[in-house]
C-alpha cells in the first residue's frame, strides 16, 4: 500500500494525538491518586493531632486510614505498571503479543473519558488466543480511533469489545449499546484513519450491520513472520 504525503501526515498527527491523549489520561489518573494520598495522609495527621489534644485514642480509625493509603498506593502502582507496558509497546514495531493484554492496557486509559459520557466497557475476550506477531502499538492506536469515534455518538451505554480466534485470524469486534446522540448510529468505520491503520496491520475492517458494530480482522502469523512484512 502506498500513501501520499498528506495522508501520511494526517496519520502521523493522529498518532501523536493518540499518545498525547493517553498521557493526559495517565497524568489525570495519577494526579487523582496523589490527591487521595495527600488527603488520607492529612486525615491521619488530623486524627493524631486530635488524639493528642485529648479526644480519645482511635487505633482502628488510624489503622483504617493507613489501610486506605496502602490501597491507594496499590491502585497507583497498577496504573503506572499498565502505562509502562503501554509505553513499551512502541519499543519494537513488530513483536509477539497477546491481543487481549494490549486491549486491556488500552481500555485502562479509556475508562475515564468513557465514564464522562456515562459509557462503560464490557469485555468478552476469548482466553486461549495465540500470540499475534504484529505491531501492538498500532493496533492500540486503531482500537483507540474506533472507540473514540464510537464515544462521539453515544452516551449512557456501553461499548462491548469481543475477541475471537479462528483459522489463523483474530477478530476484534467493537459494538455499542446506549443512547445515540448524533446522526443515529453513525458508521464508525467511516473514520478515515482507521481503515489505513488496519491495512498497515495487514488486516481489514468492516461494518457488521449498519451502525451496530465493527469487526477488525487481524491476520495472525503462527510462523513468527510479520503478517504484512512489505509494509515495514
Amino acid at each position, binding site marked *: 500500500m502506498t500513501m501520499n504525503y498528506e495522508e501520511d501526515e494526517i496519520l502521523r498527527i493522529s498518532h501523536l494525538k493518540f499518545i498525547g491523549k493517553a498521557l493526559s489520561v495517565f497524568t489525570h489518573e495519577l494526579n*487523582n491518586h496523589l490527591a487521595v494520598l495527600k488527603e488520607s495522609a492529612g486525615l491521619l495527621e488530623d486524627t493524631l493531632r486530635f488524639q493528642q489534644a485529648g479526644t480519645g485514642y482511635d487505633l482502628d480509625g488510624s489503622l483504617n486510614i493507613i489501610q486506605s493509603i496502602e490501597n491507594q498506593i496499590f491502585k497507583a502502582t497498577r496504573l503506572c505498571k499498565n502505562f509502562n507496558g503501554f509505553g513499551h509497546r512502541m519499543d519494537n514495531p513488530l513483536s509477539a503479543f497477546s491481543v487481549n493484554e494490549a486491549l486491556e492496557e488500552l481500555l485502562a486509559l479509556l475508562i475515564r473519558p468513557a465514564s*464522562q459520557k456515562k459509557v462503560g466497557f464490557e469485555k468478552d475476550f476469548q482466553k486461549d488466543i495465540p500470540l499475534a506477531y504484529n505491531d501492538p502499538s498500532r493496533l492500540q492506536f486503531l482500537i483507540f480511533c474506533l472507540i473514540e469515534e464510537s464515544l462521539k455518538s453515544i452516551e449512557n451505554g456501553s461499548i462491548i469489545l469481543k475477541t475471537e480466534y479462528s483459522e489463523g485470524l483474530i477478530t476484534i469486534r467493537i459494538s455499542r449499546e446506549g443512547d445515540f446522540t448524533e446522526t443515529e448510529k453513525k458508521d464508525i468505520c467511516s473514520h478515515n484513519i482507521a481503515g489505513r491503520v488496519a491495512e498497515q496491520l495487514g488486516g481489514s475492517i468492516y461494518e457488521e450491520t449498519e451502525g451496530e458494530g465493527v469487526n477488525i480482522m487481524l491476520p495472525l502469523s503462527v510462523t513468527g513472520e510479520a503478517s504484512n512484512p512489505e509494509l515495514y
Partner: protein
Amino acid sequence: MDKKKGIKVLLVDDEVDFVDTLAQRLRMRELLVDTVYDGEQALSFIKKVEPDVIVLDLKMPGLHGIEVFREIKSLSPQIQVIILTGHGTEKDEEEARRLGGFDFLRKPADIDLLVAKIREAYWEKIERVMTAAAFAEGGDFDTAQRIMRKEE
C-alpha cells in the same frame, strides 16, 4: 432541613475516595459537609437543601462542572462556588470566574487554604445578603425579599 449552625458545604466530585476523605477533614474543622458524586446529584441536592458553599469538580460523569455551575447559579445565585479540580483548562478557569466563581483551586489543595477559602466565600455570601436586605429598605424590596427567603 439541617438545623445545625455552621457553614454548610457541599462537595461535588466523582472521585469517591477523595471526596469522602476530604469531607472527614472538613468536618473535623467544624464545617457541615455533604457529598455527592456527580453534577445531577448536586442539582437535586440543592433543590432540597441549600448549601452556603459548593466545592465543585469539573470533569465528572454526565454534566461537566461548568454546566453544573451555570445551573447552580440559575437555581440559587447566592450559593458560592469554589472550583477544585485536577485538570481544569485556562478556558475553564476563565469561564468559572466569568460565572462568578469564588475561586479556582487545583487538586491536591492545601486543607488550610481550602478551609480559608470556604470561610471567605461564606462571609462574602453573608455580606451580599445583608447588603441586599439593607438595599431592600431603600427600594428594591422584591429582590431582597427573594434573597432573604432563600437565606432562611
